[in-house]
């Protein structure tokens, strides 16, 4: 009997991984890219693509030939796109979404933070393996950008971690469900703003689209990619467009859980999940379409000076709030 229960649990876990990781995450991500493209088009007096366009693009790219340049390191070049995709999917699988993740463990916040850097690292690997001068500049820019945004990002993420007193998503989310989202506290709001800025950089959207600035360095690290490997990179990017809002919602907006034991609460929660994600995605689109590209040194300056300073202020406030016992500081 015990054995059967264990097998059942493993079966449910596997089904969860397959369904959530390989059906929900990429498809919702592609849907979010469509929202971005359509919103952008409407803001720019254009019509915009039909809703199936991201899927059509993906299928088209998958059916095309993958070219590997003669100067490229073949294995690394071809391994980079799947690494990017699987890291994004795995980051999503560890986070709670609707239900608690079967893969959760103490310290999963740290692992997810690492997994969310992986797409950028994969892009750097693939870019430097491709042997293209534009890719080399793109990799150099991507690396500098990662170094500059990662510190304020981790500092900002420490705010909810400190307040909830745990490095586990489930604890952070349940803490917020009991006492309200961290966004409603001063330090949480500042850290949230810093995270929005970092999300923009992690997805290489304006004003931080410097690693793949197309009028400067063609496509940066992705310059030599084509066919299926480019499709996987694009899918990884789309998945990240879903993963990052999930992460921020879990950290600052009270989580994406549904209280199944109460039908009314469950309905409200379901609506709230959609609202939270859509608001985050639309905010990103607004920033993306109403800013020009910053020059690399300006962008790095923004992160090293403004973002780091604000994140440090938020962290100090949260330490004070925990020590003094003022939850709204």
């Amino acid at each position: 009997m015990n054995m059967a229960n264990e097998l059942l649990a493993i079966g449910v876990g596997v089904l969860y991984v397959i369904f959530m990781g390989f059906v929900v995450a990429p498809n919702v991500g592609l849907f979010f890219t469509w929202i971005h493209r359509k919103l952008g088009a409407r803001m720019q007096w254009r019509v915009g693509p039909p809703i199936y366009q991201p899927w059509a693009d993906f299928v088209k790219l998958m059916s095309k030939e993958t070219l590997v340049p003669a100067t490229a390191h073949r294995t690394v070049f071809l391994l980079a796109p799947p690494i990017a995709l699987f890291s994004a999917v795995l980051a999503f699988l560890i986070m709670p979404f609707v239900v608690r993740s079967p893969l959760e463990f103490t310290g999963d916040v740290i692992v997810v933070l690492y997994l969310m850097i992986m797409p950028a690292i994969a892009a750097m690997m693939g870019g430097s393996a491709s042997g293209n001068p534009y890719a080399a500049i793109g990799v150099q820019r991507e690396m500098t950008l990662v170094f500059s945004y990662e510190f304020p990002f981790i500092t900002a993420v420490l705010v909810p971690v400190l307040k909830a007193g745990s490095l586990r998503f489930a604890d952070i989310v349940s803490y917020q469900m009991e006492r309200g989202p961290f966004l409603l506290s001063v330090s949480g709001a500042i850290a949230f703003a810093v995270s929005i800025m970092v999300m923009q950089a992690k997805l290489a959207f304006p004003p931080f689209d410097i690693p793949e600035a197309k009028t400067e360095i063609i496509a940066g690290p992705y310059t030599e990619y084509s066919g299926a490997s480019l499709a996987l990179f694009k899918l990884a990017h789309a998945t990240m467009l879903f993963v990052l809002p999930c992460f921020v919602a879990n950290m600052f907006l009270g989580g994406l859980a549904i209280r199944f034991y109460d039908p009314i609460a469950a309905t409200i929660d379901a609506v709230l999940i959609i609202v939270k994600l859509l608001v985050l995605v639309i905010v990103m689109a607004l920033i993306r379409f109403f800013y020009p590209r910053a020059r690399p040194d300006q962008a790095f300056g923004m992160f090293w000076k403004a973002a780091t300073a604000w994140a440090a202020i938020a962290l100090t406030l949260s330490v004070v709030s925990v020590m003094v016992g003022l939850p709204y500081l």
Partner: protein
Amino acid sequence: MSRDREVVEIPLGPYHPAFKEPEMFKLYVDGEEIVDVKIRIGYQHRGIEYLAQRMTIQQVVFLVERICGICSTSHQNCYCQAIEDAMKIEVPDRARYIRTLIGELERIHSHLLWAGVALHLIGYDTLFMYFWRYREPVCELFEELTGNRQHYAMICPGGVRRDIDLKKMRPKILKVMKEIKEPVAKLADAVAGDKLVRARMSGVGVLTRQDAIRYCTVGPTARGSGLRIDVRADEPYAAYKELGVDVKVMTEGDVLAKTLVRVQEIMESIGIIERCVDAMPNGPIQAEIKEYPVAEGIGKYEAPRGEVIHYVKLNGTTVPERVKVRAPTYANLPSLVPQLIGYSIADAPIILGSIDPCFCCTERVSIVDVREGRTVVLTMSEFNEFGRKRKNPLKVR
């Protein structure tokens, strides 16, 4: 330039998303900083001058129009002025006003197009689309006035080919001018007021007044550096003497100054068009060509990008003996070197864009080049030798 540091060569072009046309800029960079630039053109050579010597004077009008897709009427106008200069033809008043109208409308659409492209170069696609949206009414107005959105084919030696029905078109022209005036001013404010746009444009790609003189720059590139030169004011052609031109000058010399000069010129052009429509006299639109003399003529015209010069030599037949074109980008191109050095790769596209380069206008000389990684640029005599004796210069050296 000392080369002992780690200097990397970054080719921009011949095909690059920042450019609409093939050209090549070799940037020598140290990290992100540009330390040297080499400019190579010649990918776009179409043999227009050669073709012009095999067509009649009337046919060349339509050939020179195709030198450029954006400032098409500038070349046509300039060529016709050169022919009129050679033949000593007096252009009727109404034709001069119609030429002014078409020329200024073209300046508006060209500057709006440039503003969009410049914003695209710094990654601001939303404002790019906005600028092009307000260019659309101008193109539609062109279609109503001339039958075409581009390549209007309005001008011929001695006048213009089509009359404009002012009774019908005057309200339409004024309506379009009113429609674009306010939004363009607002967009210009948005550009000048946006902190990040300012950070990208102000203090970038500075061309000092001295360099602007030394490199013989023309047009908005020169006017952004404080040089008050404009053919429309200095040697008025068409109806500019009567209508008057207020030459817009800024002294900073950076990309922002060149942008603002162009925006102010759009406003000035709108004013000129409004005055032109009101003051347009009645009368004939074409002077007759009575004979084909043996003569030389020069036409000067202020295109949206700067001064165009056409030279024609007539030999008494209907076929011109020589047509020579100097487009503004040819004059402005070398000035990119002082503008680029010292700035970063990220600045390169907007600096290159700031002179509003138009390469298909510029290409008159082709340079023989690369094989097996070696680059051999031929001298003129070597090139002639190559043509006559079929000696491969790469093997000779």
